[in-house]
C-alpha cells in the first residue's frame, strides 16, 4: 500500500462528506499530509511537509483561511470520535484515557477533551474537543542499514536511541519484520512487547503492520509484565520493546538477559551526550548483552547519526 492509499484508508474514519473532500485531493497532496487536526467549531487543518493548510470546501488544500474553509461543529466531532472508536468506546477506554486510539490501518487518532479523574488517575474523557489523526506510514527497509551493521552475524542485543520523531519505532518494527521473516533467511523467534500499540498497531484484534511471519506480539501490557510473559511462555530469540525508561522495565530486561534472550529496544535520547549520560543505558550496556547501539539523527526517519559498540558507550 503506497502513502496515497494509506491516506485514503485513514480518512475513511471521517463522515462521508469530509472523506469525499479529502479523497478529492491530488495524489501529491495526499502523500504530503502527515496529520489531520480536527477541533470543535474550528477549521480542519492538514499538516503537510510544507506546513499547516486548511481544507477548502471545493476540496483542495489552501494556506489562506477564509469563510470557505471546512469547519466542524461539536456534534460532527463527536461523531468522528465514535467512528474512531469503531462505535465501541468501552473497547478503547484505556487507549482514550492514554490519549490516542489506533484505527484501522495503524493510523493513530490523538483524542483530547476533559479528563474525568479519580484519585488523580484519568478514568475517562468527556467533551472531546480535538482529534489529531496521524497518517501511519510503514517504511519497509527503514532498518536495512542497521540490520546489515548489527545483525549480519546473527541475532544480538541492540539499543536504538534518538529524539522524538526520529523513527525509533519505525526501525524496531522493520527489524521485527526482517528478523522474523523469510526475506533475510533468519526466521528468528521474535517477541514484541508493544505497550503503546505503535509497533504492531493492533486494531480490533488484527495486527495492522507487517511484523514478519515468526513474530509473537502482545499489546498494551506494561513492559515489565509483558517481557516476563515473553520469557515464560514464548521462548523467544529476541524481545523487541519500545521506549524503555523505568526501573521495573530494566529489572525485567535484566532477568531476560540472564536467560540468554537478546533484546532490541529503544530509548529516548536527543543527542550523544544525553545517550552517554543515561544511567539506564550504562546499566544495560554493562550487562554485556548489548553489543551495539545506534543514535538516530532525527533529520530523516530511521537515519543513523552514529553507531556505537558497547565499549564506546561506557568507555
Amino acid at each position, binding site marked *: 500500500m503506497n502513502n496515497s492509499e494509506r491516506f485514503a484508508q485513514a480518512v475513511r474514519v471521517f463522515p462521508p462528506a469530509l472523506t469525499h473532500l479529502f479523497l478529492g485531493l491530488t495524489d501529491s497532496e495526499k502523500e504530503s499530509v502527515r496529520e489531520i487536526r480536527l477541533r470543535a467549531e474550528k477549521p480542519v487543518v492538514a499538516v503537510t511537509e510544507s506546513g499547516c493548510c486548511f481544507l477548502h470546501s471545493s476540496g483542495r488544500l489552501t494556506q489562506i483561511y477564509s469563510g470557505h474553509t471546512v469547519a466542524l461543529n461539536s456534534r460532527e466531532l463527536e461523531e468522528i470520535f465514535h467512528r474512531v472508536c469503531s*462505535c*465501541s*468506546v*468501552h473497547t478503547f477506554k484505556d487507549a482514550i484515557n492514554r490519549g490516542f486510539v489506533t484505527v484501522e490501518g495503524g493510523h493513530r487518532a490523538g483524542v483530547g477533551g476533559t479528563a474525568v479523574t479519580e484519585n488523580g488517575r484519568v478514568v475517562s474523557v468527556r467533551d472531546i474537543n480535538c482529534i489529531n489523526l496521524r497518517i501511519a506510514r510503514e517504511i519497509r527497509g527503514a532498518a536495512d542499514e542497521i540490520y546489515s551493521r548489527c545483525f549480519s552475524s546473527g541475532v544480538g542485543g541492540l539499543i536504538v536511541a534518538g529524539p522524538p520523531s526520529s523513527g525509533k519505532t519505525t526501525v524496531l518494527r522493520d527489524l521485527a519484520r526482517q528478523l522474523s521473516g523469510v526475506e533475510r533467511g533468519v526466521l528468528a523467534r521474535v517477541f514484541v512487547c508493544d505497550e503503546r500499540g505503535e509497533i504492531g498497531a493492533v486494531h*480490533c484484534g488484527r495486527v495492522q503492520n507487517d511484523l514478519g511471519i515468526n513474530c509473537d506480539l502482545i499489546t498494551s501490557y506494561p513492559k515489565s509484565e509483558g517481557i516476563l510473559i515473553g520469557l515464560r511462555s514464548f521462548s523467544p530469540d529476541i524481545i523487541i520493546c519500545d521506549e524503555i525508561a523505568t526501573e521495573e522495565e530494566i529489572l525485567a530486561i535484566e532477568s531476560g538477559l540472564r536467560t540468554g534472550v537478546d533484546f532490541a529496544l529503544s530509548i529516548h535520547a536527543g543527542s550523544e551526550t544525553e545517550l552517554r549520560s543515561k544511567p539506564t543505558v550504562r546499566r544495560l550496556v554493562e550487562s554485556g548483552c548489548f553489543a551495539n547501539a545506534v543514535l538516530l539523527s532525527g533529520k530523516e526517519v530511521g537515519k543513523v547519526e552514529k553507531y556505537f559498540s558497547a565499549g564506546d558507550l561506557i568507555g
Partner: protein
Amino acid sequence: MAEFAAALLVAAAFVIGGRMLASAASERVEFIKEILLMLNIFETRLRYAGAPVSELLHLASEGGCSRLLFLEKCGILLAEGEIFKDAWEKCIREHTAFCRLLPEESEKLIGMGSDIGRTDVEGQLSCCGYYKEIFGACLLEKEEIFRRSAALYPKLGIMFGVSAALFLA
C-alpha cells in the same frame, strides 16, 4: 353436497385463522427470547473481553439469534463505516416481520442503539441489564398471551367454523 363442502371450507378457514393467531403469538415469544439471548451474549463478551460492537453483533447473529436478521445487516453497515446508532435503527426498521409483530418492543430496541458503545464496560453492562429487565417483563407477558391463545384461538376457530357451517347448511 355443495352446501356441506362450503360449510367445511368455512370451518377450515376459521380453524386456520385461529392457528395463525396462535402462531403469531408464539413467534413473538421466540423473538423476545432471542433478544434476551442477544443481551446475554453481549453481557458475557463485554464482561470478558470488552468486545467491540461489530464483534458483539457477529457473535449474537452466529450464536443462536437466527430470527434477529438485523444483527448481521447492522454488522455489514458498521463495517461500511456507518455510525452504529443509525445502522441499528435502519436495520431494525427494515426487518418488517419483527416490527409488525412487536411494534412497541422494536421501538424500545431501537432506543438501545443510543446507548450501546457509548460508555465504558460498566456502563454497557448496566445498559444490557436494563434492557434485559424490560424484555424479561415483555417475555412473561407474551408467554402468558401465548399460553392463552395457543389453546383459545384454535378452539374459537373451530367453534366459529362449525357455527358458520351449521348456519350455511
